[in-house]
């Protein structure tokens, strides 16, 4: 199906299933522990043996010798494969560091051996018996602040609009500040895990934990130089991803190598302490933001320059992603620098770009509002734009940012907020209120599915994944709606490379793209059924197909009918800016004596088009808000600049938010529709929920204490000496 023009009215405008709250159809499996994750495929590979990885013990350099003899002769060991025994493997999609093979160490805990043994304990013990000699690489300067100083002002701006110099010269108010966001680790609950059967060196089956079946499928073929047709990839349950499982990673590669060497299926999970440095993370950023405004509160100049690090050839984190487009302003200069550093690989993490960019920009907006003596809600409203500021001919497809702010302010009780920084006390706690805007792009990708009507049951096959986002449920809803059937009569078969290629899950493109793909497949099925029955104008309702003289139950169609289609996105979308918008409001308490910060309540208002399932969408948003609390107050990958690795590489030392950190949370979805975005007029929401949250908290801390902290996370050591006098 070609999506070639904005959709006017269609069957979703009169929906009975789509847009209605519905509990997850995979819920009972998950709450009873019966959903099989990648390391648990006793159903498919009951004889799998145990793989265990060994990671490099240096930041970068070369391996000069490996002695694995003791490991090979250790009890229960079936095979050991060291990186020196394997030619450097080709890199799969967006793999920057090599996943295995050769003597080069590009980052700490890069995989350098895999051990296969009869038991987990034997494999783990043998891994410790491998002797490795290293030649350490030349020490590298890992100081991102120093790197920013070096690159600042260099290179062509990514966006340059208007006369920025004049804007800052003539402004009524200017702010100019530096902001820091730390490296962040996805820390999904299930570590990267795979079970692989490549026993005979011929066909390979990969039961893995991955967000993108097709990318993974292609990457395995590339990595091992074998035909894609010989590989099957399955990932029906994924224990969280957040971007960490977009790409092929070492778990699947090592399990495959181990399986081939030992001649048996092998399962391997990265040990938790290895996840942070072996896999990918969100780069730290250094950001300088300058804002210029005239006396009536209109931004006249926006200057955003940022730096992030990555391995050579990587992408880092683009913290300026939102700056060209989020706010109005006649002039702007935007530049992101990516600095090469020999550190573990940086790549996408939930809302890559906007998440760390808004952590800074939304503090800057708060600072400017204060400088102008304006309400920060009103300041944002004044600077709304309905067009791409750099290309005024390009309108937003649908943007209700102002309504997010207004609805939120009313629901939160913003008018009764503390307006004097440091001026409100509740016992030992200083109370503050903060607001931030939220923006995240609305990407869509081609997405396919197969729809099969079989004896009154509708089967949907697509390689789409459900990483906790609710794909099983919303795709079943979409299919049921399109076919006029009950959700109970829909069977979802997903996340298998044998099925049509979907968008996969990432970049909050999954829900809008894959529901469109299922819609396309079901429309093709409708056409086929109507054709078979000789109906010109068929309608599908209540489990029946009607038209002309025909009125029959779909369950009466004896033959299996199958149709496959994919949604393709037309060029007309290039004529629009597509985004999702939101506003976050928080109340915080900062302990007047210790500086401990507690979030007391949170509200998000989201504008993301049609909400396909308010239950799962709300869960996505509150989950983003929880991640935002961690980003604001505790998450921080601690870089050892001498050794070039992250020292707090486990779940005790990298502190994500826990139950006790999370207060009452409210979410309001605006009742909006975006007919430019998709046939369902829907956009993604899973990343929007994170965007801006940390800044709202930081602004709340400022409001509570009168101390501005621009360096995340806002731990007490950064401002306890500046707290108001007791």
């Amino acid at each position: 199906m070609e999506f070639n023009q904005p959709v006017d009215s269609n069957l979703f405008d009169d929906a009975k299933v789509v847009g209605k709250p519905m509990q997850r159809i995979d819920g009972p499996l998950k709450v009873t522990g019966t959903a099989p994750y990648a390391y648990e495929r006793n159903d498919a590979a009951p004889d799998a043996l145990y793989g265990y990885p060994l990671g490099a013990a240096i930041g970068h350099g070369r391996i000069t010798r490996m002695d694995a003899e003791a490991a090979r002769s250790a009890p229960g060991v079936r095979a050991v494969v060291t990186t020196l025994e394997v030619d450097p493997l080709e890199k799969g999609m967006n793999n920057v560091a090599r996943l295995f093979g050769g003597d080069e160490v590009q980052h700490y805990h890069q995989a350098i051996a895999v051990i296969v043994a009869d038991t987990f304990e034997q494999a783990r013990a043998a891994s410790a018996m491998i002797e490795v000699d290293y030649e350490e690489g030349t020490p590298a300067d890992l100081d991102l602040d120093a790197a920013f100083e070096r690159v600042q002002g260099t290179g062509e701006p990514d966006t340059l609009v208007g006369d920025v110099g004049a804007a800052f010269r003539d402004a009524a108010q200017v702010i100019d500040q530096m902001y820091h966001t730390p490296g962040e680790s996805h820390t999904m609950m299930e570590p990267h895990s795979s079970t692989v059967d490549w026993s005979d060196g011929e066909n390979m089956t990969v039961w893995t934990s991955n967000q993108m079946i097709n990318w993974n499928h292609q990457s395995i073929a590339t990595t091992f130089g074998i035909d894609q047709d010989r590989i099957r990839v399955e990932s029906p349950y994924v224990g969280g991803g957040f971007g960490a499982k977009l790409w092929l990673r070492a778990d699947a590669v090592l399990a495959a190598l181990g399986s081939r060497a030992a001649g048996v299926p092998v399962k391997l999970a990265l040990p938790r302490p290895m996840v942070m440095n072996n896999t990918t993370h969100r780069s730290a950023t250094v950001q300088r933001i300058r804002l210029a405004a005239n006396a009536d509160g209109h931004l006249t100049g926006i200057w955003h320059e940022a730096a992030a690090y990555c391995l050579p050839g990587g992408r880092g984190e683009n913290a300026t992603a939102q700056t060209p487009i989020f706010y109005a302003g006649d002039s702007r200069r935007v530049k992101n620098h990516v600095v090469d550093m020999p550190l573990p690989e940086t790549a996408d993490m939930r809302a890559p770009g906007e998440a760390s960019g808004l952590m800074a920009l939304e503090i800057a907006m708060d600072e400017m509002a204060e400088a102008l003596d304006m309400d920060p809600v009103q300041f944002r409203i004044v600077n709304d734009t309905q067009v791409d500021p750099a290309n005024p001919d390009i309108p937003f497809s649908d943007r209700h940012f102002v309504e997010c702010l207004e609805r939120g302010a009313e629901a939160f009780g913003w008018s009764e907020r503390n307006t004097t920084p440091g001026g409100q006390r509740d016992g030992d706690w200083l109370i503050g209120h903060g607001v931030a805007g939220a923006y995240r792009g609305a990407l869509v990708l081609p997405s396919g599915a197969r729809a099969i009507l079989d004896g009154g049951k509708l089967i949907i096959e697509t390689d789409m994944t459900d990483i906790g986002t609710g794909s099983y449920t919303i795709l079943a809803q979409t299919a049921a709606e399109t076919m006029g059937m009950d959700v109970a009569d829909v069977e979802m078969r997903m996340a298998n490379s044998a099925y049509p290629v979907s968008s996969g899950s990432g970049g909050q493109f999954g829900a809008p793209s894959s529901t469109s793909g299922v819609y396309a497949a079901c429309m093709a099925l409708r056409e086929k059924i109507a054709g078979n029955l000789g109906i010109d104008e068929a309608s599908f309702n209540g489990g029946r197909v009607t038209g002309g003289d025909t009125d029959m139950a779909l369950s009466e169609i004896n033959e299996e009918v199958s149709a496959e289609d994919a949604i393709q996105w037309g060029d007309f979308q290039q004529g629009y800016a597509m985004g999702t918008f939101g506003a976050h409001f928080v109340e915080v308490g900062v302990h007047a004596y210790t500086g401990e910060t507690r979030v007391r309540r949170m509200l998000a208002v989201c504008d993301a088009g049609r909400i396909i399932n308010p239950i799962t969408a709300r869960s996505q948003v509150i989950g983003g808000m929880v991640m935002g609390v961690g980003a604001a107050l505790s998450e921080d990958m601690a870089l050892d600049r001498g050794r070039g690795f992250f020292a707090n590489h486990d779940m005790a030392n990298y502190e994500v938010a826990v139950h006790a950190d999370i207060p009452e949370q409210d979410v309001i979805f605006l009742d909006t529709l975006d007919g430019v975005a998709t046939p369902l007029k829907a956009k993604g929401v899973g990343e929007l929920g994170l965007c801006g949250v940390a800044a709202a908290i930081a602004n709340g801390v400022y409001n509570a204490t009168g101390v501005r902290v621009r360096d995340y996370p806002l731990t007490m050591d950064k401002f306890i000496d500046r707290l108001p006098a007791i």
Partner: protein
Amino acid sequence: MSPPIDFSLRRRTLLAGTAAAAAFSAVNRGGAAAQSTGATAGPETTTVTLSVNGEERELTVDNRTTLLDALREHLQLTGTKKGCDHGQCGACTCTVNGERINSCLSLAVMHDGDEVETIEGIGQPESMDPMQAAFVEHDGFQCGYCTPGQIQSARKVIEEIRAGIPSHVTGDLTAEIAITDAEIRERMSGNICRCGAYANILAAITQVAEESA
């Protein structure tokens, strides 16, 4: 007013301690024998009998095998999850002799004779326990990987509060402890949910507590 600490919980605690001590002494005897003969080493495996979800299971495990891996790899009870294997995340929470523990922090050989309950013993998809049903109703999970551990903890948190066991946020240690949001959040904080379903988990626990009051 009921007494602050439930008798049955106390008795189970005592049993857990006794069983662990017995397992240790068995291992120690093996070590002593090896020393006296000067032979290579003592046995590297131990046979233990666990009662798992009400069924006696005899297992011969590597002495290094955690209770978590005994459940997952020997008994194929994979509902108990391995998130960190270091007692940091709570995904492996299961019940031993009536108390919740991190099964990754405990070796299988310490549990000879113990009663273990896993998520599979609590309910099945067609016959969910009230807490499991409440998690589905309130969407108390997303990816589902921490969920069995959350549910194990959730059921015990209600029992622990009712048994009068205080927490960090308990104010008056002599009064009956109320099942409040703060008490639930504090006691659930050993179970991390990176998808961030905490508010929904709280709603599920609160509902079950109220319905069972």
